[in-house]
């Protein structure tokens, strides 16, 4: 395994913490990992990003160029980073904040109401980062759910563990549901194809 992941959005969405938790989950899984992030005033407003590389072998160069997995949580981040994805890669879009996605030929785009779920189902918009993390783990298998949950528990502020885990699990479920929908759609497509052929 060698996956390069970019989490992007605006300052205050908690993407740096999400990146750290993802990286820590990879350590719990026994993998090699590097996490880097944007620093300075931009981390407190404006564009924000965290980059994580998870691999089975030692990682030499720490910077992410064109990524395997991209999360975009704002329109600006989407415009800037969505297309920087490898063919066959994955772009996860928070459709609450992103209305238009540029053409990302060759990559799969998954639109999820990440911030809506945080706001309405978890009840706290600030947990959108954990919903997103759950979705990434669910869709892309970047970490085992056990390692990710342990990392969430260890890294979020004391007293907010259950709230954040709830958000993380809702994100996972959302991803699973989409995966099931996709499987059903594919099955329907196959049936259609089969019936067209006959």
């Amino acid at each position, binding site marked *: 395994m060698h996956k390069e992941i970019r989490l992007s959005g605006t300052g205050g969405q908690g993407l740096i913490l999400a990146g750290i938790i993802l990286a820590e989950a990879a350590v719990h899984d026994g993998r090699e990992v590097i996490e880097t992030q944007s620093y300075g005033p931009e981390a407190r407003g404006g564009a924000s990003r965290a980059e994580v590389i998870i691999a089975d072998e030692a990682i030499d160069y720490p910077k992410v160029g064109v990524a395997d997995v991209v999360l975009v949580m704002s329109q600006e981040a989407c415009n800037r980073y969505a297309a920087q994805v490898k063919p066959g890669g994955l772009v996860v879009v928070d459709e609450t904040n992103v209305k238009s996605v540029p053409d990302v030929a060759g990559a799969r785009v998954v639109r999820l109401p990440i911030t809506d779920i945080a706001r309405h189902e978890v009840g706290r918009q600030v947990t959108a980062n954990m919903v997103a993390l759950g979705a990434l783990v669910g869709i892309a298998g970047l970490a085992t759910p056990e390692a990710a949950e342990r990392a969430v528990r260890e*890294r*979020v502020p*004391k007293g907010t563990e259950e709230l954040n885990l709830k958000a993380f699990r809702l994100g996972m479920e959302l991803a699973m549901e989409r995966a099931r929908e996709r499987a059903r759609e594919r099955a329907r497509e196959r049936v259609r194809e089969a019936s067209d052929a006959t």
Partner: protein
Amino acid sequence: MAMPVSYYLRTSKMPHIWCAGCGHGIVLGAVLRAIDSLGLDKDQVCVVSGIGCASRAPGYLDFNTLHTTHGRAIAFATGIKMVKPEMKVIVLTGDGDAAAIGGNHLIHAARRNIGIATVCFNNSIYGMTNGQYSPMTPTGSYASTAPYGNIEEPFDLCDLVYAAGASYVARGSAYHAILLWKLIAKAIATDGFSFVEAITQCPTYYGRRNKMRSAVEMLKWQKEHGVTVAGAAKMPAEDLAGKFRIGELGARTRPEYTRRYAAIIDAAQRGEGGERDA
């Protein structure tokens, strides 16, 4: 216990570098009498200095001694006091060292109220570099870098240090030598930051340029211009112009810094506090 002053001196390092008529020897004598009157163990006294004539003093003293960089003595002393709070840490400094290049360290040590006793040998001039004006040179005085007369106003160092938070401030002079050693003894005994300004004479570079050609004339000037705190209280303000107050100028009880830090260690080791935000 009353040991002779020579008990505290590295007499093998004599003769000292100070000029004939310099007041620094009198001030140093007052420091040693103060230490003696407190009965301090030489091994537990650390004397730290910066750069300048006064800062050469520690080399002649039989304690743990440290001659540092210009202006930084109090910062070096802070490290020593933090690691060894049980030691008596004394800084010997000059007016340029303490009030100009080291001014920031002086006010911040006072603000923290760390247990360091500072004695500032104020001779109103940079003697080591041959007589440039300092932040303590009186307005109108002459110096090698003030050939037309000094247009700057000097600090009242004692007021400055007290306002910054010191537990104890006092002023004496080479002329008022016995008062000086009593003030220094109180300063060293203070549990907190303490500061004594010792007015002293530099006949070589200050006196010569300012119509006081001999040490005797300069000591007479100290005698005539030094006013006790009690005396000053009874004098009208205009009579105090050009004079300096001597004696205890401020004393109060505030928590000492290394004691406060010891409480931090206790709390940390009990597992209290030290929360980190996410």
